[in-house]
């Protein structure tokens, strides 16, 4: 997947509200990328644009060499799956049913699951450690468990790219790490490209293959160590409040 | 030839000539037997009756409801002729075999006609039987001979079907009554009675002639109507003799609207025929006028008589309902008369039931009220002074 001169934002009748502009990056198969930045930098907007959930303002996005705009919804559903921040409308289905919905792009008009579908669902449930929960209704799950179920659904959709918007919000440290580790194994083992937005910059540095740092002055893209060398993180927050320690790859509070 | 042969020939020719002439005469008689007889109606405008030579009577209702687009034709076949005559079903809205033995009626105005013709015992069902005032019919209701059928708008189809009447006399404001349609699909004929659209007192009374053919009682109906007509016209002539021409108004307030009978309405015509000055007689409406209290007060404050003030039965009631009523001279002088006090046992108003059939009684009541000197011995029938 790659983006060229991408500008993302909101369009209203009167104005084009550009949130972030001139974004460029290129991703290969099986890479785990994090999109980080300060609040309002445009992380979610960018992710949603990549998933064609909202339209871009200018520039282009290519998937497997083909312009995103040329993909039909059905074809795109087989290539990109998303996990968003919005809550699902109905929590009354079982985990298994939820994950099974991920197979919709491949089933017939009535939605019957064949053996291939069933095995993909099973694999997704296993990867996200949901076997014990699979017959429970979604409203019975904790936030973390529900998040895992949503990821399992995206995984069952068996797409080349998985986009996740803030997958670790509202979770405690253990679960945050758990989710990120799962994402990494998904990327490396199933060779899917996984892109997520996060506020957990320190964790992202430790775990990701590449990172995209959205900064109003200049966006930087590359492997974490490279970005550290470029001192990209130091420009992120006001230096008198927060400073970045390149050796440990962590932020420190300036007293 | 011989003499016998000649004689034979001449008689033969004679006989032939005679028969030819005879036949010609007969041919001239036959056309009169094939003519249909159209019944003459002096006042009613809403229906026509044609008696065909075959014995079939055709009734055409031209005014089943106001502004009706199409007319309804009904064919009445005598029972004994059913086997011999076949009619085109599509040409008639209903085909009824007469005489009718079991009849369902839907409006209290139908009851007096049935009673006058002496066939009230053939009534088997009626919606909202509580409205009926007639004592004879109430007895039949109490004994269960007349079945309660709900309401006209929502006629109980099941019970009507169970009754299996020979005829249903219905009325409607348009052709939309699904219960009637179900009955007709079950081969129970439904005919529309439009007597309530008739605009003149004698016109309404003449509808007894509409009922008559169904019971093969045309002559009886004619003589009954003649009696009513004579009684009415005599009363009218009598009223003309009076020298006074009292001012009259009618109606009452409902919420903020005063409903006043229009100048050409049925009620207004009685007032005119009773030789009174109905203050709104110049208007063209055949229904009610919607007036404000101000315009009524302005015109009728000093009117001498107030007739039919809506549903009120006592001066106290009226005072409590609206203090403006006390402003009227007729109220202050206790010259208010109403028909609302004359009720049947279950609350039905006799006026609505019987007045259309007996306009002569209405007229006499009004003459007695408005010109007391003309009919001093008349007992008030419908109208009574307010309590």
């Amino acid at each position, binding site marked *: 997947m790659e983006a060229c001169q991408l500008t993302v934002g909101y369009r209203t009748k009167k104005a084009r509200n550009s949130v972030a502009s001139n974004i460029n990056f290129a991703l290969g198969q099986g890479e785990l990328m994090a999109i980080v930045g300060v609040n309002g930098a445009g992380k979610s907007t960018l992710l949603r644009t990549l998933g*064609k*959930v909202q339209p871009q303002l200018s520039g282009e996005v290519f998937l497997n060499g083909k312009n995103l705009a040329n993909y039909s*919804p*059905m074809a*795109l*559903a*087989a290539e*990109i*799956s*998303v996990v*968003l921040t*919005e*809550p*699902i*409308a*109905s929590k*009354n*289905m*079982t985990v298994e*049913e939820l994950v099974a*919905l*991920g197979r*919709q*792009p491949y*089933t017939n*008009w*009535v*939605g019957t699951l064949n053996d291939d579908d069933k095995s993909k669902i099973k694999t997704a449930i296993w990867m996200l450690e949901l076997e014990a929960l699979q*017959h429970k209704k979604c*409203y019975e799950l904790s936030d973390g468990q529900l998040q895992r179920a949503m990821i399992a659904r995206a995984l069952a*959709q068996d797409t080349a790219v998985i986009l996740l918007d803030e997958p670790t919000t509202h979770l405690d440290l253990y679960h945050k790490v758990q989710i990120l580790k799962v994402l990494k194994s998904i990327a490396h083992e199933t060779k899917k490209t996984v892109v997520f937005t996060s506020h957990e910059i320190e964790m992202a540095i430790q775990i990701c293959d590449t990172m995209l740092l959205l900064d109003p002055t200049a966006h930087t893209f590359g492997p974490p160590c490279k970005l550290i060398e470029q001192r990209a993180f130091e420009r992120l927050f006001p230096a008198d409040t927060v400073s970045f320690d390149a050796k440990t790859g962590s932020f420190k509070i300036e007293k | 030839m011989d003499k016998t042969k000649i004689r034979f020939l001449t008689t033969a020719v004679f006989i032939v000539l005679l028969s030819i002439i005879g036949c010609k005469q007969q041919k001239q008689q036959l056309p009169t037997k094939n003519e249909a007889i159209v019944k003459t109606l002096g006042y009613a405008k809403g229906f026509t009756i044609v008696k065909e030579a075959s014995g079939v009577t055709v009734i055409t209702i031209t005014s089943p409801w106001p*502004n*009706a*687009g*199409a007319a309804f034709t009904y064919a009445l076949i005598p029972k004994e002729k059913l086997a011999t005559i076949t009619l085109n079903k599509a040409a008639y809205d209903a085909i009824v075999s007469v005489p009718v033995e079991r009849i369902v009626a839907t409006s209290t105005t139908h009851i007096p006609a049935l009673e006058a013709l002496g066939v009230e015992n053939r009534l088997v069902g009626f919606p909202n039987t509580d409205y009926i005032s007639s004592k004879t019919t109430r007895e039949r209701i109490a004994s269960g001979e007349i*079945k*309660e*059928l*709900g309401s006209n*708008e*929502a006629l*109980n*189809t*099941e*019970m009507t*079907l*169970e*009754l*299996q009447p020979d005829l249903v006399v219905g009325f409607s*404001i*348009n*052709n*939309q009554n*699904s*219960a009637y*349609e*179900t009955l007709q*699909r*079950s081969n129970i004929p439904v005919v529309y009675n439009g007597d309530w659209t008739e605009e003149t007192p004698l016109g309404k009374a003449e509808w007894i002639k509409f009922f008559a053919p169904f019971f093969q009682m045309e002559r009886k109906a004619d003589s009954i109507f003649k009696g009513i007509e004579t009684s009415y016209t005599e009363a009218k002539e009598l009223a003309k003799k009076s020298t006074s021409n009292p001012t009259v108004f009618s109606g009452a307030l409902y919420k903020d609207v005063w409903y006043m009978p229009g100048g050409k309405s049925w009620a207004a015509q009685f007032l005119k025929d009773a030789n009174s000055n109905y203050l709104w007689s110049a208007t063209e409406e055949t*229904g009610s006028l919607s007036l404000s209290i101000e315009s009524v007060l302005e015109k009728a404050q000093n009117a001498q008589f107030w007739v039919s003030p809506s549903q009120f039965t006592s001066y106290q009631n009226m005072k409590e309902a609206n203090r403006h009523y006390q402003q009227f001279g007729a109220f202050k002088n206790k010259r208010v008369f109403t028909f609302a006090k004359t009720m049947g046992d279950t609350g039905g108003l006799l006026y609505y039931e019987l007045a259309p059939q007996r306009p002569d009684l209405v007229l006499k009541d009004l003459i007695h009220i408005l010109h007391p000197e003309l009919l001093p011995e008349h007992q008030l029938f419908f109208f009574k002074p307010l309590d």
Partner: protein
Amino acid sequence: MGSANTYRLNFILLFVALLLCTGINISLGSVSIPLEETFTSLFGGTLENTSWDYILWNYRIPKAFTAILVGSGLALSGLLMQTLFRNPLAGPFVLGISSGASLGAALLIMGASLFSGLSIFSFVNDVSLAIAASIGSFLVLMAVMVVASRVKDTMTLLIIGLMFGSITAAIVSVLSYFTDAEKLQQYIYWSFGSVGNLSWSQLSLLLGIIFIGTILSLVSAKSLNALLLGENYAQSLGVNLKKSRFYIIIATGILAGGITAFAGPIAFIGLAVPHLTRQIFNTTDHRILLPAVLIYGAILMLLCDTVAQLPGSANVLPINAITSILGAPVVIWLLVRKRKMVF
């Protein structure tokens, strides 16, 4: 919830219940017809009392069919609306469709005073009333579709539908104010709703309408399930939002509009039956819900009609009142028992 076998068993039970309710509905009415006679007539025998024959075949059986069609159609359209708008308070009339039908009927019955001189208004009869109501609901449906294609947010569509409903109801109010008593009474009687007195030809028309609506809904079953996650997720699963919204709204319009045209506006069934079905079947899968809701709707309607007939008495209650009086406590009981709404 779970195996296909449990579902199969449930459906068989439901179907049996439906037959039972149909039987009860046909056996009870204002006129008391003994059960043996009903059965004899149903299975081809002729009755001595021909009026009972008439009643059964010309009134009760068409009425039962109408009730089944009306109940299932309304329940189905209610389910569609609740899923499309992801709102448990939605019903088939939320887009203003029944208000449109009411407006059509009101114009025909009471509009003569406004459009005096137009002779069509004298031809009010059963057929023209159904046509007027259909045109009314169709026009509102068209307006809604136009708006739907311009509005991205489905919630906005819901509000706009409610606004359409208000406008049409207001126009009806004005008409009612200026009309005379008989016309008003007739309009009010129409608005009470009625499943009796439909002819076989009208019934077959209604059957066709329900059939089309059901087919459209079945075709949308997959997208309905996806919509349960939300529109963005549904789109990411390949659902063409515009197209599925279109089908769902058209299906609802056809079902609700057609039913209101023939039977008047019947309240509550469309709102309550989907909830009832979800509670009892404990699933949100539309492949189960769609057929289940059809059968439950039919059963509820049959029961309401049986009660409305007031067996044994000449009076008949308006079906609208009965559907609410019977249906509401059932839903309340279910929710209180389970303490949580399944949606």
